[in-house]
């Protein structure tokens, strides 16, 4: 197996499984809407993973970019516009602009202060959306119609929507992975590990971080616009800080080291939540400990689990280890 295949194998398998799922008994409306929600959240989680794992920027306000993307769809819907070529670029641009402004301030801090300031900006966005009474305020807003593309109602078909989300998720993941391996990504990664060294060779990390922050915000906006279409309902809850925390948890559960981890994390959390809440009334009592256990025993996340298991297996069978050596 070649190196890139080995590195991205699990993420590729997951994407293939998502492509096959509708034809393997998960083609009903319920399953498709569940999967598309997971993929959309996965997209946002991948963009957050770019910040957390790539640039070392732990944002606790990423849901705000999703919320802004979703509210852009809502605002256009209220104005009677639902042409995708207008709505989607606007949603992405709005979220990117938010990221540019808040990032320009937040990125002057680091560590715990960065976490707190991103949280504060997120809360500001949350309360702002709550006060839009024309867009439903606290109660939220039910979309009149899904976004159309050149007048065609492509997104109304659940299967088409499934593959649209999958395609965009794959694109975001592949683009993000390329980005981390590029010149730009190398500066980001180096600045995560040792900012002093990066300065010493002549780079100021700030503009690189800001560009990454804006890119992640743009993807957040895209996923928000998709989520608004998937659920046809948007409320301020989408921007709450617990949503940001959930995204962060998807990233950590999936594995911070690789963007593909965020996809696994999002899938795992959405599916687990769904399954457990059907089985048990007090499902959160099980969900919580499961998450704790996963962090304790899978420090590299789900995406690192196969390697860890292999290592454990080798450790358990010394004969094989000797043969390898």
């Amino acid at each position, binding site marked *: 197996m070649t190196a890139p295949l080995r590195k991205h194998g699990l993420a590729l398998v997951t994407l293939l499984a998502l492509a096959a799922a509708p034809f393997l008994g998960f083609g009903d409306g319920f399953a498709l809407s569940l999967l598309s929600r997971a993929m959309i959240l996965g997209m946002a989680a991948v963009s957050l993973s770019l910040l957390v794992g790539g640039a070392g920027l732990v944002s606790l306000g990423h849901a705000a970019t999703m919320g802004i993307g979703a509210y852009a769809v809502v605002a256009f819907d209220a104005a009677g516009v639902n042409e995708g070529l207008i709505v989607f670029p606007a949603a992405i641009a709005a979220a990117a602009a938010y990221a540019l402004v808040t990032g320009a301030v937040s990125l002057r801090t680091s560590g715990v202060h960065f976490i707190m300031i991103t949280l504060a900006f997120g809360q500001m966005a949350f309360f702002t959306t709550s006060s839009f009474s024309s867009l439903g305020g606290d109660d939220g807003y039910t979309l009149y119609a899904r976004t159309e593309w050149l007048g065609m109602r492509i997104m109304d078909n659940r299967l088409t929507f499934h593959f649209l989300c999958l395609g965009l998720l794959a694109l975001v993941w592949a683009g993000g992975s390329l980005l981390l391996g590029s010149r730009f990504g190398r500066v980001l990664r180096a600045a995560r590990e040792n900012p002093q060294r990066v300065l010493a060779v002549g*780079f100021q990390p700030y503009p690189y971080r800001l560009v990454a922050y804006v890119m992640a915000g743009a993807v957040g906006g895209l996923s928000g616009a998709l989520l608004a279409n998937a659920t046809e309902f948007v409320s301020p809850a989408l921007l709450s800080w617990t949503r940001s925390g959930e995204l962060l948890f998807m990233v950590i559960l999936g594995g911070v080291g690789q963007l593909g981890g965020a996809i696994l994390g999002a899938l795992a959390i959405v599916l687990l939540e769904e399954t457990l809440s059907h089985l048990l009334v007090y499902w959160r009592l099980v969900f919580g400990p499961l998450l704790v256990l996963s962090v304790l025993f899978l420090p590299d996340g789900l995406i690192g689990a196969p390697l860890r298991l292999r290592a454990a297996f080798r450790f358990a069978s010394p004969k094989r280890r000797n043969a390898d050596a």
Partner: protein
Amino acid sequence: MPDPLLELHGLSKNFGALTVTSDVSLTVLPGEIHAIIGPNGAGKTTLIHQISGTLRPDRGTIRFAGQDVTALPFERRARLGLARSFQITSIVPGFTALENVALAVQARSGSSFRFLRPVATEKALNEEARAALDTVGLEQVADRTAAALSHGEKRQLELAIAIAMNPRLLLLDEPLAGAGPEETERLIGILHGLRSRYGILLVEHDMQAVFALADRISVLVYGRVIVTGTVDEIRGHPEVRTAYLGEDALA
């Protein structure tokens, strides 16, 4: 005499009531190794901080290559050709040795706002990085993760990073700190090889290394340069003996 590469004039810095740099003036000529010695707490590292731009002096000017750089930040001075090594090794631990050096090459060759092309396959960067690793004798471990290198190798790697910046002046803050006898030997050899290619300002505790390498030596005591001179002048200077060296070092 050629124009000095680095010229400090009347540099002063206080931390509250404590004077750490007091009216320091000195020059480094192109191709010269100028060593700064002095007892612990003399303000050597603080001086390096001010020259490299991580600390702003209260008074005085710093001219580098004919330009006043007193107000320029760290990374801008680096781009002008002022390369600094740190007392405590500063590398990117998760990168390979090659990647550490290639990052420095990248900083001076074209824009780094390039988002798609895999940087690991950029031949021009890698070749120059390998050449710098060659210079310090690390070509064998180019693909090893920096964190896995020995202490001496990390010191060498930091030198390679500085060289890869294609600098005019190397600011070396105790490059031999923590190195064993063999590693010291090797590092002195490397520094010998670098002389005349760059101006070097060397802060170092190892007296043998300083006497073996330096063209000129400045002695810093309580933030003040008490004397600047050649190796022989410094060895024989009475104030230096009492302030710093002790009788043993001169034997």
